[in-house]
């Protein structure tokens, strides 16, 4: 983990209240999809944790939804601005455990790290399958990005306004759910947990430090207490206690 400055290159509203931000700077320490960065914003005491959606050696992309004053402010940052970030944080996904064609499930704003995971897998020659769940068609994001990787995500919406109607687990009913990678709201994670054989789950928690110092995000697992920020955000199915 380092404290460093990233320069904002672009900010695009890709859906109502959802923004894609490209940042440049040294990204060579990022070691796995699912890791995140913790961003300092003027006027806010705590940093804001946001997942890395994709990256290369000199840049990274984040995708975030404006839910409060911090993400609002982030969406209004001008290109050219330097952002103080701590990165990379967290363990990220382990690509090696799910075979060559694992199932990836993302829900809502949990999709960006799933995209990063799919991208890394494709780079490794794997052929991930993707289910992407949303509330309604106005929430659907990153479809083209997946297509660009050669992946046709199965899209589900709760109201059926795009793709299949229903939840991601509805969509997974006929799929091979032997090993699943999942990121999304906690009820979704729980539902996926219940139907899959094995897998990895990315969690969120309110954080102070984001790098393991304060125990602000610590939760109980079958293998002892784990800090979501440092020992997670990705937990293995076998260790999770709901």
């Amino acid at each position: 983990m380092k404290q460093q400055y990233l320069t904002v290159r672009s900010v695009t509203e890709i859906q109502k209240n959802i923004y894609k931000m490209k940042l440049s700077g040294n990204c060579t320490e990022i070691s796995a999809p699912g890791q995140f960065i913790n961003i300092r914003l003027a006027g806010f005491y705590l940093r804001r944790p946001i997942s890395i959606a994709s990256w290369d050696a000199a840049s990274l992309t984040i995708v975030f939804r404006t839910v409060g004053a911090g993400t609002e402010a982030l969406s209004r940052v001008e290109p050219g601005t330097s952002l103080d970030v701590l990165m990379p944080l967290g363990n990220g996904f382990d690509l090696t455990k799910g075979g060559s064609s694992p199932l990836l499930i993302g829900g809502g704003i949990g999709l960006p790290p799933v995209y990063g995971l799919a991208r890394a897998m494709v780079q490794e020659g794997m052929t991930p399958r993707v289910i992407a769940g949303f509330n309604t068609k106005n929430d659907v994001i990153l479809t083209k990005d997946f297509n660009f990787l050669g992946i046709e995500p199965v899209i589900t919406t709760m109201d059926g306004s795009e793709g299949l109607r229903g939840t991601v687990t509805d969509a997974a009913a006929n799929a091979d759910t032997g090993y699943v990678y999942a990121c999304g709201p906690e009820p979704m994670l729980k539902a996926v947990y219940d139907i899959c054989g094995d897998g990895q789950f990315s969690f969120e928690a309110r954080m102070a430090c984001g790098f393991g110092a304060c125990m602000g995000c610590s939760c109980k697992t079958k293998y002892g207490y784990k800090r979501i920020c440092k020992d997670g955000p990705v937990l293995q199915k076998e260790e999770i206690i709901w």
Partner: protein
Amino acid sequence: MVNTQVHLCGLTLDNPVIPASGTFGYGREFAELYDLDILGSISFKGTTPEERGGNPLPRIAECPQGMLNSVGLQNPGLEEVCTRELKELAKIYHKPVIANISGFSVEDYVTCARAMDREEQVGIIEVNISCPNVHNGGMAFGTDPASAAEVTKAVRRVTDKPVFMKLSPNVTDIAEIARACEAAGADGLSLINTLLGMRIDIQRRQPVLANKMGGYSGPAIFPVAVRMVYQAARAVRIPIIGMGGISTAEDVIEMMMAGATAVQVGAANLVDPFACPNIIETLPTLMEKLNIRNLEEIIGVIE
């Protein structure tokens, strides 16, 4: 050349800057970022006799210029701390450390103090009395002079190391508690612990913290901390480690002028992991600007 050394009950600190208990773990995360030996000392995470899982999540809430935490003294318990954490700490930090201990009964404190007394690297035992006393209706030890004195006496009896009582700011009269601890044999005082606060998620109509209330720390509490350190310093003769909202070298100077011999830096480490090294680096320049040759000369200069 300015001199940043301060003396604390026989210990000589290279500088007065000490990471505060609970905001620095056992130093491991920070040792990856900088050489810990630049620090005056380290107050490590509060230890209780048994392992504690702490409170349910969420445990963190944001505030104006600060944060609430309801971590709930999560720690691996006395034995694990002594057999593992302190051994690891000794590898990355080579000066005396401050053992922060907590408890829910006088016996808890005694148990921890006894064990810490045997730890060679422990230079000071810092007794966190902001914890609820389960034998006294859950009222915090630190909010009642008699309970504070009782803990002080009990701990004092079982160790030869300097005992610093860490006071709660959630009291009517900090001077009264300070005097009670001094009279009961404390070698020094640490203050302030966090202010009790609460935030509500107005969308969900629930407290942000699962535990409802939590401890407020960060720059927002600095003026209260300066006031309490000033009041305590004028009430007792024993040295004080001042803390609460410190994040700059200027804050260190202000806290020392109020009466602190050394300071702790808490929440600042969390939002800026380089807070302590930055302060330590800036301190000499600031001292020159303020015409301070020996840092100790400003301790309690405010009448």
